[in-house]
């Protein structure tokens, strides 16, 4: 049985509690980017590009029987780490769970500043994209 969205969020919160320095946190985020399930090059199309980011971020999703699986990439390393965190939480979950999820881990690990609508790295755009991909599966 795979972990629920909230179990994974709690796991991430626990991991980030180890760091008391911002630079350590970002070092870890950069490392997490290396674990990102990468989108294939041919899927890096305009419609999979998330607008509103200073860096370029592509997200693709694919349904298995019941679960939605995400892949992504970015040309910025920190953005790659952040999308990797989001995908770790939301990938391999049911579309319904993805759409209704409340992503409290972002605030808990101190990334809430990235949620401001004008923030250049477009975390809001990424979350919206993941959730709207989930929603598409629910609305035939």
């Amino acid at each position: 049985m795979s972990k629920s969205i909230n179990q994974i969020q709690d796991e991430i919160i626990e991991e980030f509690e180890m760091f008391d320095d911002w630079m350590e946190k970002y070092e870890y985020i950069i490392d997490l980017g290396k674990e990102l399930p990468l989108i294939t090059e041919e899927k890096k199309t305009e419609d999979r590009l998330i607008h509103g980011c200073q860096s370029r971020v592509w997200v693709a999703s694919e349904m298995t029987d019941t679960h939605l699986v995400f892949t992504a990439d970015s040309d910025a390393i920190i953005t790659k780490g952040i999308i990797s965190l989001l995908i770790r939480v939301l990938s391999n979950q049911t579309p319904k769970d993805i759409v209704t999820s409340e992503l409290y881990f972002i605030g808990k690990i101190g990334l809430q500043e990235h949620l401001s609508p004008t923030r250049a790295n477009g975390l809001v755009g990424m979350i919206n994209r993941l959730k709207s991909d989930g929603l598409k599966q629910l609305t035939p």
Partner: protein
Amino acid sequence: MSEFNVNQIRTDFPILKESVNGKPLIYFDNGATSQKPKPVIERISSYYTHENSNVHRGVHFLSDQATNAYEQARTTIAHYINAPRSQEVIFTKGTTDSINTVAFSIGETLKPGDEVLISGMEHHSNIVPWQMLCERKGTVLKVIPVTPKGTLDLDAFDALLSERTKLLSIIHISNTLGTINPVEYLIGKAHQVGAKVLLDAAQSIQHLPIDVQALDCDFLTFSGHKVFGPTGIGILYGKKEVLDPLPPYQGGGDMIDQVSFEKTTYNGLPLKFEAGTPNISGAIALGAAFNYLTSIDLRGAFKHEHTLGTYLRARMREIPGVRFIGEAPETSSTLSFLIGDVHPLDLGTLLDKQGIAVRTGHHCTQPLMKQFNIPGTVRASLAFYNTTEEIDQFIVAIERSMHMLS
């Protein structure tokens, strides 16, 4: 006036004592906006505490006071830029508003086929208003190319000038490249073909002495907030003989002489271009910013800033893989750069976590980014309250960030 002492000057800017992410703030984003000295901050407060009233229509004491302070600010600014008459200094919302005012008003006098000349290093605010004018009036936009070093191609400029050129609208110092353009040459040449010249001084008013009579520009535009004043206030200077025949930009209160449903006549300068209740506190506080500048050893301040700019470039050259975007012989203390293939956003984020404010991205100069074939840059832009110690810390922070990113 005492000799310029950066540590003394820093005490005038309260925000410089702030901490960011647990680190002392190093503010290297002065190209975006400057910090405010105490006299400016206090002037806003004292205006609202003691003088607040509407201007230009008062029979009462407070309105007189507010009007006097507002007009005094105009005079202060006129003196600072050496405008012959204070009525040639118009309060606007900022550089963008100033350029749009000129684009609209002079635009009404242009015919299809008339040409407006700008350059490839303009800020979007000195591109889009002219494109809108061209759509409205059938005028033609011409662009002076930028060389790989980040300077204007002056041969191309000479070739682009003709009797069709009605206006040259040009940036004095590039907000992205730091290039100081040879504006005396450009203005002289443009005048030879009878073109008017708008000089966008948004990035030069805070770095160089500006004398509109020596420059002989027809218009000069800048924003208050980049020259230690508040946001939402800016200046359009225009020669009286050039502004007088132009139609007003916006209609409303203050800009009229007589209003009737049959025929409305307009006020004279400067109010003709100041429709509606202006940003009174902003104008007065901008006056305070210029009073502040004339109260310090400004020559020493500019010299210090020049030294900082040179030091920044020298220290940055030590960074392996660094590439400067803009290597003009004459530059301001603004430096755009990239390091290896590191994304500007990554570097900007990590610098922020170390207490350092820089700008990343295209800096509202997308055509320039396209020319250099880059998505953006990291830009450090200094002011006279910055220090060489801050530059040293900046270099250390870059080295630490690069260690993490590569």
